[in-house]
């Protein structure tokens, strides 16, 4: 009998099972499988989380505490949240899971010449569904070094399933607490010169022939959180040309800091604020990768990407995330545009439409 699947490497060749991996890790496995340049890493699966909760014997406690909540009483929610999270971060982890994690972490590190910092991100099973756009409900920890530090943050991700925000969200959206689980992504950290997001549809008008890129200096978190005004580019998906660009102010950036063994936010010097943070080749590479992700998943995608300053030109663009775009993709197209059909009827309608009739 094989050991329970506590760990699944992104490039391990196993299927991208959503129940086992959560949305984020399943997507990373699928992207890796599709040959897209995803930074290496592994998932601590929902099986690990479930085994931990079961072994710790706290499942019943959690349900009991959640049942006492008054949805309108913030204080009671905060108190319950804090208690549950203390249980999750405080209880011992079963040896089997502990060991499996150690092996996985060392296996990942063995791929690099020197110890590589990693990012730890939660990968909830309810997150990132096409019809539930609540990305960012769970946690992300950057630039972690050393097995124990990383393991501690995996636990914090587990605990983030019960932040006040998450509890309230589930209450409001009628998502049951039973069967709730969480996977965690442990992934080699990107040393991002420039990072950002891209969407394979224009969010302003739903134009599927446009790729919109937001890019700023340093790690992409400031772009995702909206803390900086990024450079905003529109790329013609088919013609592969930049059709519009607006240079953002990009006043701060998130960069690794060796002294604090983490990331720090710092001011961007004026010269770099007024210039585009992407070369033409970067733009082409991002557009190409966004297109590949869209083609692979068969619907418009919303991706996160980063350009690693440590990797050679041409191999330095990495894909961190790809999820379905949820706003325009679910809209039904206009029943009949003025120019539907073809032939003389539609030509006539087009002529009349053109003069505003």
């Amino acid at each position, binding site marked *: 009998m094989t050991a329970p699947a506590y760990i699944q490497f992104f490039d391990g060749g196993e299927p991208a099972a959503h129940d086992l991996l959560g949305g984020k890790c399943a997507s990373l496995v699928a992207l890796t499988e599709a040959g897209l340049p995803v930074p290496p890493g592994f998932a601590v699966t929902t099986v690990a989380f479930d085994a931990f909760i079961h072994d710790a014997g706290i499942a019943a406690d959690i349900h009991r505490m959640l049942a006492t909540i008054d949805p309108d009483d913030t204080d009671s929610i905060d108190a319950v949240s804090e208690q549950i999270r203390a249980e999750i971060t405080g209880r011992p982890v079963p040896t089997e899971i502990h060991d499996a994690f150690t092996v996985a972490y060392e296996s990942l590190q063995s791929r690099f010449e020197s110890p590589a910092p990693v990012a730890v991100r939660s990968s909830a099973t309810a997150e990132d569904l096409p019809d539930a756009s609540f990305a960012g409900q769970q946690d992300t920890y950057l630039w972690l070094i050393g097995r124990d530090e990383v393991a501690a943050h995996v636990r914090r991700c587990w605990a983030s399933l019960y932040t006040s925000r998450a509890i309230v969200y589930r209450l409001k959206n009628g998502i049951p607490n039973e069967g709730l689980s969480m996977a965690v992504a442990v992934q080699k950290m990107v040393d991002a010169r420039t990072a950002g997001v891209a969407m394979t549809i224009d969010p302003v008008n739903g134009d599927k022939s446009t790729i919109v890129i937001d890019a700023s200096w340093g790690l992409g978190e400031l772009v995702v959180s909206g803390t900086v005004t990024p450079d905003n580019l529109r790329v013609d998906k088919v013609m592969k040309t930049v059709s519009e660009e607006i240079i953002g102010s990009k006043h701060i950036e998130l960069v690794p800091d060796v002294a604090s063994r983490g990331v720090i936010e710092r001011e961007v010097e004026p010269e770099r604020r007024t210039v585009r943070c992407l070369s033409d080749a970067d733009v082409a590479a991002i557009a190409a990768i966004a297109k590949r992700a869209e083609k692979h998943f068969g619907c418009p995608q919303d991706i996160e990407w980063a350009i690693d300053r440590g990797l050679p030109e041409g191999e330095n663009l990495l894909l961190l995330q790809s999820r379905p775009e949820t706003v325009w993709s679910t809209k039904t197209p206009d029943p009949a545009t003025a120019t539907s059909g073809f032939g003389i009827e539609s030509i*006539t309608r087009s002529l009349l439409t053109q003069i505003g009739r």
Partner: protein
Amino acid sequence: MSTTTAAPSLEGESTAPRSFPSPYDQAPPAGAEGWKDLYAYNLVFQDNRRAVEEAKFWFCDSQHWPTVTKPFETIGFEFAVGCLGQYNSRQLLIPTANGIEYRMHNGYLYMSPVAVAPEQIEARVPQFMERAGHYFQNWESLLQNWHVKLRATIDEMESIEFTALPEKIALDDVLSGKGTGPGTELLGDYDRMIALAYRAWQYHFEFLNLGYVAYLDLFMFCKSVFPRISDQAIATMVQGVDMELFRPDDELKKLAKLAVKNGLTDVFADTSDADALLAAIGGRSGGAEWLAQWKESQDPWFNFTTGNGFYAHDEYWRDVPSTPLAFIKGYIDRIHAGHDIDRDIQHLIVERDRITEEYAELLDGEALETFRGKIGLARTVYPYVENHNFYIEHWTMGVFWRKMRQLSGVLQAEGFWPQANDMFYLRRDEVREVLFDYVNGWMVGAPAIGPDYWPAEVERRRGIIAALETARPQPALNTPPEVITEPFTLMLWGITTEQIQNWLGEGDQVEGTLKGMAASPGIAEGPARVISSASQLSEVQDGDILVAPVTAPSWVPVFGKIRATVTDIGGMMSHAAIVCREYGMPAVTGTGTGSTEIRTGQLIRVDGNTGTVTILD
């Protein structure tokens, strides 16, 4: 498309005027006083029509008439623009567009589209659908018939020869009891020639307007499903590949390769004396084969002008063989330098299909079906939009101008004017009077009056035309409308609302940059070569960027040398745009002032993706 930055704008309130000048407030250049009297009354802005004329917006068509037209040459726009109107307003009853009014101002041509009165639109719809629908449904057979009709017209023009009247009527005509003399035939032939040209211009627009409306329909559909799709992408999906318009150039390449193959290239060292060169080839082994090919290529493909077909001085390859020979030499040099002189047609087809399929992949259901249907129709009708140019502007007009120069020469020899082509300083109806004078003098046996009248008058007119040519035209006249909607104005002339703003200095233009239409993709940097007429083409060097008021299809032999093209005027469907896309070379068209603001030798950057030209020096 626009490129903007979030950096603060350097300029505050724009001080540029919101209107263009009125033609009534613009005096002609010094020495051109009285120029209006050279032209027919209906072609100029009449003083007592000021209120009517100032209420209209006029744009300068320097795409087709970049320089001053002489009185005879107004035939070009009178026939062309007139026939365009006939097909819109009388044959097809296009519901939303009548024709285009035209006037001359200070020697240049201005146009103003005529809208259909709103209350008449509805009634035109069913008639348009019946009439235009018939053409779309029977496109191939009607077009086949078009070729037959046009060929007959050209053949009839070719059959007409203008010669001096003989000393006496031929004896055979006397003995056969013919009863009429060659003078009446001369008058008849002149009228016939004019009528044949008029007929050819009717044919010119018989299909062209339909081509544009089908294209417009696709264009609007693409813009509705892909709001940000570029005009360039739509043009590329529809554009034909390896069109007849490129045949003349392909014939030159064929001849260049044959010269290399047969070891004849040394003969091309000096191409200025065509007769000597052709004779030298005839004396070489392998020369006979080359001369046979040369002869075969000429008919009809050397009925090709280095101009645009609208000027009497346009030179046609067939008449000036040193021109195609020099181009052939250019191709020979490129072959020797190891270049592949052929256009990469396969690449164009692959790219066109890739673009079309990628857009198709983004659509499904009814929208996909609609897209395929519209692309299909546009591709069926579109080759005409590109190819007609060879048949009318080049072939037909080549014959027309050759015959008219022949007539001018006959009358010069009779003393009517001092120089061979001076007839073109006369209006076509004045030429009719001259012919009557000439024939009458011949009939009565006394000298014609013209030789005592026209030489001085022609000199006066020569001076006025030269004076008009010293000034460049205003891009437009009077107050522009809020938005431009007329399909031809947009598609053919590239007169967009943004373009007008740029002309008025109200666009977001940065110092040292010019905005135009992104007509053919790609980016190139290089030294500018400003060319204002075909006679300067020999100055073009390898790696230059061609900057011109407008280009002609027949300039393509130099396209192998250049890196990019910039023009003052022209839209996505202008010849420069079509040729550059076919050659895979960046082009920005319709910059308005590129050829006057950019100087030869300046380093410039042409961004055919965004329609921007930057002067780097």
